[in-house]
């Protein structure tokens, strides 16, 4: 027992402890998330929502409901005001005699689609530009940062309204590239959001850039490209996920707000925000028209917020709820 003892002692501590620790940072993260029952419930709700949005047609036919855009004047009374929940229309109908339940389902698809895609684009663009700005500094940074300053100086909703309105014209905008409707809303939200991502990623990259492992990589002769994508980016994944998870509910709300103000998703396509807007004229007499889309919106945003909180806690061991 000479050298062996030494070696065993050297590695012994490690093996005994690695039994306690998980293998990868992700496993660690999963373990923490698994303990967060509220977040898991919220996640389950979101999964359910996605399924419902995807399977809306079969669900409708199962319940024998009309499509979201089918107008049924017969479901209105002689004054043209909508009728409330009934066996035929579980959530009642809207002012055009369309089934509110079907439209709430269709609205879920729109909300999720818009929020996920626009957040994805914003995060991709913001991350890329943020990394480049922080990494290269100098005029690259000055250009993007000042651009961000200008955008941040805008009243957000006004800018959104403006872009959305500008792109809702018959021709669309950016030379017809962005067509009115969902495309426009996605573009608008992404355009507004990338700045926030940019600022966060830039800040993070500025500090990551100073990390010794970046220096180490550089001293080994790594190219800038390699450093950005192999060394820095993987370390941004966690903050990106957290931030994206917080952006998604905000963007669901933003889409709804734009649609509420009439520049979002174009009729007749269903959107929760637009439904609430349509309900404004009858909100005191046809409570169901406002209540169901509003509740769907509230629950969805809440679920995303809960998941976001959960992710944040799981990725940041210091946080403490």
């Amino acid at each position, binding site marked *: 027992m*000479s*050298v062996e*003892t*030494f070696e065993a*002692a*050297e*590695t*012994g*501590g*490690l093996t*005994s*402890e690695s039994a*306690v620790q998980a293998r990868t940072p992700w496993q660690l993260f999963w373990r*923490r998330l698994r*303990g967060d029952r509220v977040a898991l419930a919220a996640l389950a709700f979101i999964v359910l929502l996605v399924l419902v949005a995807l399977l809306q047609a079969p669900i409708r036919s199962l319940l024998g409901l009309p499509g979201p855009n089918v107008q049924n004047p017969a479901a209105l009374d002689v004054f043209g005001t909508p009728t409330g929940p009934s066996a035929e229309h579980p959530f009642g109908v809207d002012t055009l005699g369309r089934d509110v339940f079907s439209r709430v389902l269709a609205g879920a698809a729109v909300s999720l689609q818009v929020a996920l895609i626009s957040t994805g684009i914003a995060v991709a663009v913001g991350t890329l530009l943020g990394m480049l700005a922080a990494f290269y500094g100098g005029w690259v940074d000055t250009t993007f940062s000042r651009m961000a300053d200008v955008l941040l100086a805008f009243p957000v909703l006004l800018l959104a309204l403006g872009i959305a309105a500008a792109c809702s014209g018959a021709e669309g905008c950016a030379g017809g590239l962005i067509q009115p409707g969902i495309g426009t809303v996605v573009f608008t939200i992404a355009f507004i959001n990338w700045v926030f991502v940019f600022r966060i990623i830039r800040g993070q990259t500025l500090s990551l850039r100073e990390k010794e492992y970046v220096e180490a990589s550089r001293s080994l002769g790594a190219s800038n490209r390699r450093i950005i994508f192999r060394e820095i980016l993987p370390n941004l994944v966690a903050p990106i996920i957290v931030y994206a998870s917080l952006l998604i509910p905000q963007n669901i709300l933003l889409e709804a707000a734009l649609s509420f103000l009439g520049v979002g998703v174009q009729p007749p396509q269903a959107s929760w925000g637009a439904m609430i807007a349509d309900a404004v004229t009858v909100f005191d007499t046809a409570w169901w028209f406002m209540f169901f889309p509003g509740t769907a919106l509230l629950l969805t945003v809440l679920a995303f917020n809960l998941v976001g909180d959960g992710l944040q806690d799981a990725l940041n061991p210091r946080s403490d709820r």
Partner: protein
Amino acid sequence: MTALLEVEDLRVSFRTADGVVSAVDGVSFSLEANRTLGIVGESGSGKSVTGLTIMGLSRGESTDISGSVRFEGDDLLAADDRRLRAVRGDDIAMVFQDPLSALHPFFTVGDQLVEAVLVHRRVGKGEARRRALELLGLVGIPAAERRMSAYPHELSGGMRQRAMIAMALINDPRLLIADEPTTALDVTVQAQILELIRELQAEREMAVILITHDLGVGGGGADEVAGLYAGRVVERASNEAIFEAPQHPYTWGLLQSIPKMTDERADELVPIPGRPPSLIAPPSGCRFHPRCPYARPSHSRIDPRLEPVGAEPGHEVACLLPERVRRNLWARLRAGATPAEARGVAEDPVLDESEREAAP
């Protein structure tokens, strides 16, 4: 002489998501006025927690504390918050490792000093200010008047630590706990600060607990040294004994892994192998046994107690090796033998005898 501070069987554990961390696990020591106790140990061995617990600062929902901390005969662990607050900053004061984070960034140094006076003394603002100025002068801050209105970040590291010490001493405490007061500082500044503490202590007959991971710092300044390993005291000895006749393999390791400037260039240092143990599931038996080159299989079963060493007064060690073997080993190591070489002693049949003795 009765001890100013008596700590007995202090145990502190934290309930965390990963399990219960027993940070301090049965620490006892006592300290008299005008004496300095050095607490040394590797990172995570429970030094800070010990210091904080004495002041009641580690209390919390998920903390379990047992044992006793008697200050002038009064058990602080049993004291209520009110009593504790009266002691803190008045009878017992503490200096922390990183003065930049330990000083409030939004208040001036002066305000923070004055506040410390006002909590415990019924004096006016002006009187408190005078006292603060006096202390800043005492700890060697030049242009104290001007520094009073400076914010912590405007001072250099050394100045900050001096301000921190001034704050601790402002109510003439009888016990000063200094938790790694110089770790964040350069050698030259470190020397200044240690010198300062020493001078002030002599002036005020204050007891000092000097927490450090550097035996050099601890040794130079302390009358008595306690070596902490995984929340336990493994050896307690006078300044003289800890360097000249240490009894615990852990202490040997600490001593031998430091390159010595005074020696000729040695070929090899003798590190302690492995790394500090987990405090959630600490090793069984002697906690040091996985890293101990002289451990016997039985050491993983038997938990050593802190026992007096031979005739030396105040020297205690918690080691399962027989004293004779320990002395033998240290003599060889000191003469330049590597642990492997020294381990020849382990083949000594006497050792096996001890093995039998120790077995239950």
